[in-house]
């Protein structure tokens, strides 16, 4: 994926995103907060196949969905969201994992990694899980921290 950024004086900024298939998405972020999104099919230079206007609020909501904040796809397994130098990781407790039956307090979290929440299918999210929360198969651990610490944690699991 290639991202090109250009300043449009008086208007805002323009991002041209070329994805693997060659299709392009052009996003203009206006000073006013409005977003213009245009989609060009691969090889098509001139006429966008689709154009879409979003308010600032809509754009943020869409961004959150794309980033997997609201729901992260099952097939991907572990995903990462970028927060500058920090990352958020979703780590799934698979059947047969050594995590099953452990308590949160027994997890060896490297310094710099934090357990934000445990997401249990069919149950409300458990934010800031207490040390005696028991982990089950199918849980997803939401871990945040600096990249090295989170990577180290993933290796130990």
């Amino acid at each position, binding site marked *: 994926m290639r991202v090109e950024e*250009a300043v*449009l*004086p*008086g*208007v805002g900024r323009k991002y041209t995103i070329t994805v693997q298939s060659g299709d392009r998405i052009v996003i203009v972020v*206006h000073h006013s907060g409005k977003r*213009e999104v245009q989609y060009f099919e691969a090889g098509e*230079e*001139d006429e966008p196949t689709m154009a879409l206007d979003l308010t600032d609020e809509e754009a943020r909501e869409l961004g959150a969905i794309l980033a997997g904040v609201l729901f992260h796809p099952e097939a991907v397994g572990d995903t990462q969201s970028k927060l500058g130098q920090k990352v958020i990781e979703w780590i799934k407790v698979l059947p047969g994992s050594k995590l099953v039956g452990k308590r949160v307090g027994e997890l060896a979290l490297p310094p710099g990694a934090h357990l934000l929440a445990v997401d249990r299918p069919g149950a409300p999210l458990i934010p800031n899980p207490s040390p005696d929360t028991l982990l089950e198969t199918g849980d997803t651990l939401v871990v945040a921290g600096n990249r090295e610490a989170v990577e180290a944690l993933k290796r130990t699991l």
Partner: protein
Amino acid sequence: MHPSVEAFALAAGLLALGAALVHRFGFPPLPIYLLTGLLVGQRLPVEDLEPLPSLGLLLLLFSVGMEFGPDRLRGLSGKAVQAGFYDALALPLGFLLGLLAGLDLRGAALLAGAIYVSSSAVIVKLIIDLRRAANPESEVVLGVSVLEDLVILVLLALLGGQGLHGFLLSLLLAVVYLGLARLLGPHLAKVMEGLSDELVLLLGAAFTTGTALLFQMAGASVGLGAFLAGSLAASLGLRERFERLFGPVRDLGVALFFLVVGASARDLFQGLAPAVVILALLGLLVKLPLNYLGGARAGLSRKRRLYSALYLVPRGEFNLVLGALAQAQGYPLVAQVAVLLVLLSVPLGALLIRFAPELGRLLLREAPKPRRPARSH
């Protein structure tokens, strides 16, 4: 009740009416303000509206300085610079036209500026209103506008004052301003962050108008002062904040300013010489092929080249600054051409840009492309 309130209510009502009329057709409102002024100019008490229109122009130049100031140069692509070079060929051509029309060197230089400089403010408004920001030609056109505004600054500094003395003063003031921004910039920006919006608004207003007056007292161009004030504010990182605070005030002022330009155009054109009309039309024509070639250099497709040439038709704020300067320095012919260019090019440019796709099809005889079948994965 002060008579200005009456005048303001009348003007605001007329502007709202004009804007409402064109809003239905998805047409940008700026040209309508000019035309409204032309139509009702006789009955509108222009004098009573002051200082709003004058402030409108100052704030407009301040905005242009913020958005198109020297610090934008770093973000320019090589393509835009090349297109800007072609665009700048309008200067020598305009200068020649001026000499042919029997003007002296100074008058010819003023005319060259009026023919050369497109209106960044009008173009930006048109691009946003017509939702063309994502198009490839917009990037090139806006880049060219940055270069134009810088060239015209130099020209204003050269011609704005009374000869060399005025030029040196302008230069000195500009250097002092930019030097202050360098020295105090980070410190000032920190202080500003802690201030309330209201205080920043008042400080900004005082700073902009004060700078313009300072430049006027120095015998330099008022427009140059307002533009530099804007560039300075941008270099302090106040761009977004000022845009948010001043935007509505500026838009109101600019609408009134265009109305007043339209209204006072009648007096200017008492006994309009055919030479003025011919010069203005030549000025409009001369830039079209240049910008088309520039678009080619920037790697735009044929259709987009045409669009970019059309986008650069509108002349605006700097023409009115140059016009006032020419009038003051005793070149009524140049002043008339400069203002006529604005009156012609803003409505014409808006029409051309609005119907650019249709024009493109007509001129380039493009057969509609067959839709490719959707790709299956």
